[in-house]
């Protein structure tokens, strides 16, 4: 129902464009990105919804995207915004093509209300991570941004903006639902529904500084089919054979579980020096995604048309690894492997050093190169797609290089 309303808003937008052609502002963005890697087993990607990854000798264009935005100011206080983004996906649904479709109502200069599909204001760059021109990195730090596939929110947000002498304070409350796919090995696809999202975001912005914090809580709206099959199989196993069976069943029953996201971030950019850092903590009622701590810090500088950044990013979860059944049979071993694959999906422990270079070719076109050196303590990992997983020689130390052209128009 929710996606039908968004689609209706979007189509209504599309059909009204010819009539309002003179009043509608059209703008857009495009990123052409190629990523190469020397990893043979861990396929590099930058978000867990990407269906393609780069391996040694197998580059990926999955980080490329193109988008168009339409804006119509119907009165001094009411504005309509729609944005569509085309990028590589496992499935192409109209619902996924619509990144935003909302009405913005400015009640007073301080109070603003948005209704419809808006960006999800979770981390500092979540709302514009597809727009390569908007940030200095080749891609947002994987350890921090890859784990959340959701980018938009179907619901409402209310923003209160308060200007001080040399800064602006912003308080934002948002509520709604969101849906986004998680893609993993062996064609695993799960459209993860997040229901009952409630978030509060606070930020302070001066000429050179941005400080922000966000707390968001949500409930999982569905459990995927493979997890349901595992649940059914686990329920057939006696508790005496698998003592942790009940705890596993509780963890795998994702629907209704609460997920909490907390983040703080700071950014400094005085047009010569840059510092940017964020820390996050994700917690939930399920062992599947629990106690995930992530962060990054970047230092860099602008030199004429060039921007250089050095970044260290890291992520670590402390999921408990289930000890498994007390008996060993082929059926129990297969079931255990299936259970581990799901409960350890977010078992993450890695860090990456990155160096990135951005050259402004024109005021609307930028070229970027980023070299990442990653050390992984845990594979398989949700961040990657994998090849030859059975191989004992997993890549735990690899480099990847991203080259991109980024344009806004």
């Amino acid at each position, binding site marked *: 129902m929710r996606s039908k309303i968004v689609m209706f808003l979007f189509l209504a937008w599309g059909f009204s464009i010819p009539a309002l052609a003179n009043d509608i502002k059209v703008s857009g963005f495009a990123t052409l990105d190629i990523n190469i890697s020397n990893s043979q087993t861990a396929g590099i990607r930058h978000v867990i919804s990407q269906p393609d990854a780069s391996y040694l000798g197998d580059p990926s264009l999955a980080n490329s995207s193109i988008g168009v*935005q339409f804006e119509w100011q119907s009165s001094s206080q009411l504005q309509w915004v729609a944005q569509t983004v085309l990028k590589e996906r496992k499935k192409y649904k109209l619902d996924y093509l619509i990144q935003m479709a909302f009405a913005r109502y400015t009640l007073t*200069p301080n109070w603003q209300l948005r209704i419809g599909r808006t960006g999800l204001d979770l981390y500092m760059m979540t709302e514009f991570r597809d727009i390569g021109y908007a940030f200095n990195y080749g891609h947002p730090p994987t350890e921090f941004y890859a784990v959340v596939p959701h980018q938009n929110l179907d619901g409402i947000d209310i923003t209160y903006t308060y200007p001080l002498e*040399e800064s602006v304070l912003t308080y934002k409350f948002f509520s709604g639902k969101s849906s986004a796919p998680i893609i993993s090995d062996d064609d695993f696809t799960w459209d993860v529904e997040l229901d009952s999202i409630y978030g509060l975001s606070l930020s302070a912005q001066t*000429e050179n500084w941005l400080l922000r914090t966000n707390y968001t809580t949500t409930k999982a709206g569905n459990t995927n089919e493979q997890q349901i099959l595992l649940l059914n199989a686990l329920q057939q196993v006696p508790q005496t054979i698998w003592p942790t069976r009940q705890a596993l069943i509780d963890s795998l029953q994702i629907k209704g579980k609460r997920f909490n996201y907390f983040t703080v971030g700071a950014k400094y950019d005085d047009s010569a020096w840059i510092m940017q850092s964020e820390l996050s903590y994700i917690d939930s009622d399920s062992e599947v995604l629990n106690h995930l701590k992530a962060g990054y810090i970047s230092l860099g500088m602008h030199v004429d048309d060039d921007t250089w950044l050095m970044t260290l990013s890291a992520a670590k979860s402390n999921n408990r690894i289930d000890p498994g059944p007390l008996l060993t049979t082929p059926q129990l071993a297969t079931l255990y492997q299936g259970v581990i694959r799901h409960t350890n999906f977010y078992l993450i422990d890695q860090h990456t050093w990155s160096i990135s270079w951005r050259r402004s070719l024109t005021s609307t076109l930028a070229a970027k190169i980023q070299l990442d050196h990653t050390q992984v303590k845990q594979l398989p990992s949700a961040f990657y797609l994998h090849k030859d997983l059975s191989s004992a020689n997993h890549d735990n130390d690899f480099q990847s290089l991203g080259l991109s052209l980024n344009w806004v128009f």
Partner: protein
Amino acid sequence: MQLWTLTRIILCFLLLITCTAKANDSLVVIVHRDNPNQRLSQYQLIDLYMGKYAAFPDGTLATVLDYEQGHPLRIEFLTTLTGRPMSQINAYWSQVKFSGKASFPQAYQSIEAILKEVASTPDAIGYVPETALTEDVKVVYRFVQ
């Protein structure tokens, strides 16, 4: 033939004078002459033109007017106001606009169009070269040369 050469010299001279005048012609920020706000600070202008807070100091919602992208006055105004190159300004605006937080100000092609709109809209704010000022508008900010 001599007349044509003389005409070309005069034209070149006039062009030189015009260009020199334009180069020394500082920009001023203007509002409707009945607007109760007398002065705006640089930070308040940055808030208005960078999509952070679209209101005058007295709390009235402002209609922010600008020139079309690529217009020389827009480049001069924004780079002088923020102290940043256009590539950084455009990158910042890409964050603001494509995350749906704010929209570009209403864009106009000419100084005359900005003057006309500010003169007829009580809550409008724009900027023009100082030499283009008319009595229908009021200056609320001057760039120090």
